[in-house]
């Protein structure tokens, strides 16, 4: 009898702690709606979850999502993360105001290709973020516009957005190239204003080759730099428009 009671209590706690996949729709009073969670692996064997959720915290201007950063109080995000638990804080290092955890509903068939740390060129664009709008929001807007899937993580209180590879256009017919971006914010501060850094990792292969190469020819280098410049410009312009 006692054991049955314990099992019933454990079940109840599990149900109340986690939003189950079946409970996909937003529950009354729950400001977070998890749409889907997918599980995948990188070629290096790291497990990543692609989380898709929307949220709305009324009576606030912004919230802080662990691993993502400061974002508006209402929004929707789709990104890759090592931890499928989404934790909302009232501010960076503040109190927890919401948590969502959902078991993966499906798995990726192919590995998720994220660039390794050493794949990034030493060339980087460092820019001042002088806008009042959230950098993450503007950066994610620009990433979504390009349909880029990205991993979001925090390292030493610095938010990083690391995208998967995407194909570069405007290249000769015999050449294929892909680019991935890494956005770091705040990279450091200058005159008490935060700087953000954008770097790229590009790879190329001739059309009849199987393997990607990191040594870039001039054409790919040029197109990659252009892609980076356009991206940075768009993030800044969008941020200024939101001022």
């Amino acid at each position, binding site marked *: 009898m006692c054991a049955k009671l314990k099992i019933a209590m454990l079940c109840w706690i599990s149900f109340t702690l986690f939003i189950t996949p079946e409970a996909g729709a937003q529950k009354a009073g729950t400001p977070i709606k998890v749409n889907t969670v997918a599980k995948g692996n990188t070629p290096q064997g790291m497990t990543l979850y692609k989380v898709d959720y929307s949220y709305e915290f009324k009576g606030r201007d912004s919230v802080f999502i662990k691993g993502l950063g400061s974002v508006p109080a209402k929004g929707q995000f789709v990104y890759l993360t090592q931890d499928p638990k989404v934790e909302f804080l009232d501010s960076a290092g503040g109190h927890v105001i919401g948590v969502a955890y959902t078991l993966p509903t499906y798995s990726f068939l192919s590995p998720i290709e994220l660039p390794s740390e050493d794949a990034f060129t030493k060339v980087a664009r460092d820019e001042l973020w002088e806008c009042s709008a959230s950098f993450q929001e503007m950066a994610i807007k620009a990433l979504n516009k390009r349909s880029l899937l990205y991993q979001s993580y925090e390292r030493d209180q610095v938010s990083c957005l690391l995208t998967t590879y995407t194909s570069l256009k405007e290249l000769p017919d*015999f*050449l294929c190239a892909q680019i991935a971006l890494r956005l770091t914010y705040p990279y450091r501060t200058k005159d008490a204003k935060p700087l953000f850094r954008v770097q790229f990792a590009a790879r190329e292969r*001739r*059309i*009849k*080759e*199987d*393997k990607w*190469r990191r040594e870039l020819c001039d054409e790919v280098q040029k197109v990659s730099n252009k892609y980076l410049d356009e991206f940075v410009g768009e993030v800044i312009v969008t941020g200024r428009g939101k001022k």
Partner: protein
Amino acid sequence: MTIGVARGILLSTFIISFLIGAGSIFQVFVKSKIYSDSMSSMLLKLLSIYSAPLAVIIGGIFAQRNTQIRSVHTIAFWSAFILSAIWNILIVGRFLLFTLTADDTVGALTSYLNALVPPSYFLVMGGLSYFFAKQK
């Protein structure tokens, strides 16, 4: 048919096929569809494929100089020629496909050659030995 003519035809079959294969590689490289190191490795692969039959042929030519007037069995010659042609078509045809199709890759070509060449030598080595290594 004299043995000299038979040898000449067989030698030509292999030389022409080898040149077509090499030409295919050069053409793909000239069009910038492969890197120079891939071109080198593919040429080496082609050379290694043809090294065994060409070694038998060239060795036979240098070893036997005075056999031009000896006649050969027609069936033996045609058998050797048809089998050699099949073998060369299997190799060179794949190189031509590599050159002409859009989505073929170096890796796919190499896998094909690695799988096909070793077990297919029987098609040519018997005939070549008969015509080039036979002493009398």
